């Protein structure tokens, strides 16, 4: 029998039992839907995180004190004191880092602010005046603190929008005074609502000059970060190398594994996060793939029932001239068409759910989540679902093809 007619016969066979066919492929549909959904959402999450890393400033090289953290529980860097004024000055020196354009230290901690009877806990950042440019923190009201404020250790504060709302409500904040750790700060600016646009949520932050922070709040001499902006994106690696060399020279380090600091570039962070996300996606996909095996067993089960139920039809076809191969092909094709259809439906459902999720995340979480159709996953889904049909269909199809026509015809 010509292959075209084998397909036609198989399709007709499936059409004859529409609702059973639909129920049979449910397992495959669910399996492929979840795979597509996971892979699509995984890609979306990865893109989002990468965009946030980029949001830290694609040209910013960040120097952290202490060793490169080996895990999320590695808190040592919070207390390391290898970055001080001396190191800051060295990095500012154009002879050391010729491609560094702006250099700025950051000190941070968690503090409470008091205004009248209102108390609110926020992240306190002590930084240079360049913070405004480096992190794109143009105030909605008032003006960011200046170089002068930093030098004079002025008690001025820039409030994130949520901090302002919590302490002042709808009242005017600029010009008022708040107390942080027994020091009175004059509010000179309020930041616009930014949302969780990068790893730092500036809505819940207060920014003050780092000199003021060291003097009145933390009482320490060291910095938590030094941000160096490269003059262009392509010079990031050069800047990173120059920083390492400068600091190693200063600290007399010859063995890079003994570094008491750590330089991070957005690209490196992006790469690491990308690896983590890929691993997570593969893991979840593997779990979803189990449902495909379950679906496949379901297909095999139903195909076996179908073969038994259609024993007479098989006998008839053989009596009319169908070879064993014709019968085998017919039932195998039925299984493959069934699962491939399930795969197709799963791809459509999975991408639709992923698309809806992207809209909901955008709307309710305020994240810049992008939907991308997972072409690779779709192709994989189609191939895998067809393979499931082939693998789990072969046994029932062989059962069908080996039926003796006489016994099949006699079957009631």
């Amino acid at each position, binding site marked *: 029998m010509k292959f075209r007619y084998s397909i036609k016969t198989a399709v*007709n066979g499936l059409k004859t039992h529409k609702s059973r066919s639909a129920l049979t492929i449910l397992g495959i549909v669910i399996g492929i839907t979840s795979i597509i959904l996971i892979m699509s959402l995984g890609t979306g999450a990865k893109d989002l995180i990468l965009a946030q890393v980029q949001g830290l400033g694609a040209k910013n090289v960040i120097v952290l004190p202490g060793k490169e953290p080996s895990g999320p529980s590695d808190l040592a860097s919070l207390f390391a004191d290898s970055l001080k004024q001396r190191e800051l000055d060295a990095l500012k020196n154009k002879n050391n880092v010729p491609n560094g354009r702006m250099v700025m230290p950051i000190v941070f901690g968690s503090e409470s602010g008091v205004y009248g009877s209102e108390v609110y806990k926020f992240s306190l950042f002590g930084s240079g005046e360049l913070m405004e440019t480096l992190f794109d923190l143009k105030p909605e009201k008032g003006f960011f603190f200046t170089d002068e404020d930093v030098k004079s250790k002025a008690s001025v504060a820039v409030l994130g929008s949520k901090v302002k709302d919590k302490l002042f409500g709808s009242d005017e904040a600029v010009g008022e005074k708040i107390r942080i750790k027994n020091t009175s700060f004059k509010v000179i600016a309020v930041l616009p609502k930014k949302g969780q646009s990068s790893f730092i949520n500036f809505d819940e932050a207060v920014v003050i000059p780092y000199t003021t922070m060291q003097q009145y709040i933390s009482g320490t001499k060291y910095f938590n970060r030094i941000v160096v902006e490269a003059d262009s994106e392509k010079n990031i690696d050069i800047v990173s190398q120059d920083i390492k060399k400068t600091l190693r020279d200063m600290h007399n380090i010859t063995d890079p594994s003994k570094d008491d600091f750590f330089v991070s570039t957005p690209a490196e962070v992006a790469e690491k996060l990308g690896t983590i996300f890929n691993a997570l996606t593969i893991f979840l996909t593997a779990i979803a793939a189990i449902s495909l095996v379950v679906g496949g067993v379901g297909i095999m089960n139903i195909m076996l029932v179908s073969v038994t139920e259609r024993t007479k039809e098989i006998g*008839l076809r053989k009596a009319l*001239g169908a070879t064993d191969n014709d019968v085998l092909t017919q039932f195998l094709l039925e299984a493959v068409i069934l699962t491939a259809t399930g795969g197709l439906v799963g791809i459509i459902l999975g991408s639709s759910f992923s698309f809806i999720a992207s809209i909901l995340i955008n709307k309710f979480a305020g994240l810049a989540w992008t939907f991308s159709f997972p072409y690779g996953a779709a192709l994989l889904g189609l191939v895998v679902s067809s393979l499931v049909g082939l693998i789990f269909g072969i046994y029932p199809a062989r059962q069908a093809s080996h039926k003796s026509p006489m016994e099949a015809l006699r079957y009631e």
Partner: protein
Amino acid sequence: MNIIQVKNLGKVYDNDGVRTDALRGVFFDIKKGEFVAIMGPSGSGKSTLLQILGLLDDYTSGSYLFLDKSIKTYNQKEIAKIRNEKMGFIFQSFNLLPKATVLENVKLPLLYSDKPENEWEKLAREAVIAVGLEHRMFHEAKMLSGGEKQRVAIARALVNGPEVIFADEPTGNLDSKSGQSVIEIIQKLNKELGHTVILITHETYTAEYAERIIRLHDGEIESDKQVENRRVEGKDFIK
């Protein structure tokens, strides 16, 4: 010319060690163009004989030549081809695909044949017309009456131009009126179109439409005689 030559044919069923002789020492020849009825009570082995002749089942001993060639020399594929091209089957329970149309049912053997596709439609239509069902061409098989169903089955047996038509109790599931019309069509296939017909029945009335009756009893031939007063319907039933 003999289409079928059976010599000392035997068939033993082995059900978990219990051996039953379904056929023993059966000899006969069937000539091209003959209309032979095989009769016998149930359990006499007539269905087994038909299944062996129709290559639906294997025999245990003896020999069976179809068109002068032992069927033992054919492989599974060749046997499927002979069933498709040289044989037509009519069953007691019709065995139509219930959700397919009359035309599709009749086309079914052509799907497995080597006949060119552009002839399929024409051949199938001709066969449907030959059994007088042109007004039912596009009806689903399950919508038809018993007599009509059996006529579709006859058209299906006919469509590929077979050498032999095997009919296994074709009137067994029909009322006497449609049964008679079916047996008359079968007789016409033999008399006017020259098909060899082998009919299985337990009704003497039906068997007398044939030219020759082979009677089986307990797996052995009891008698093999020409019909003396052959029943022939005078009126035309093929339009």
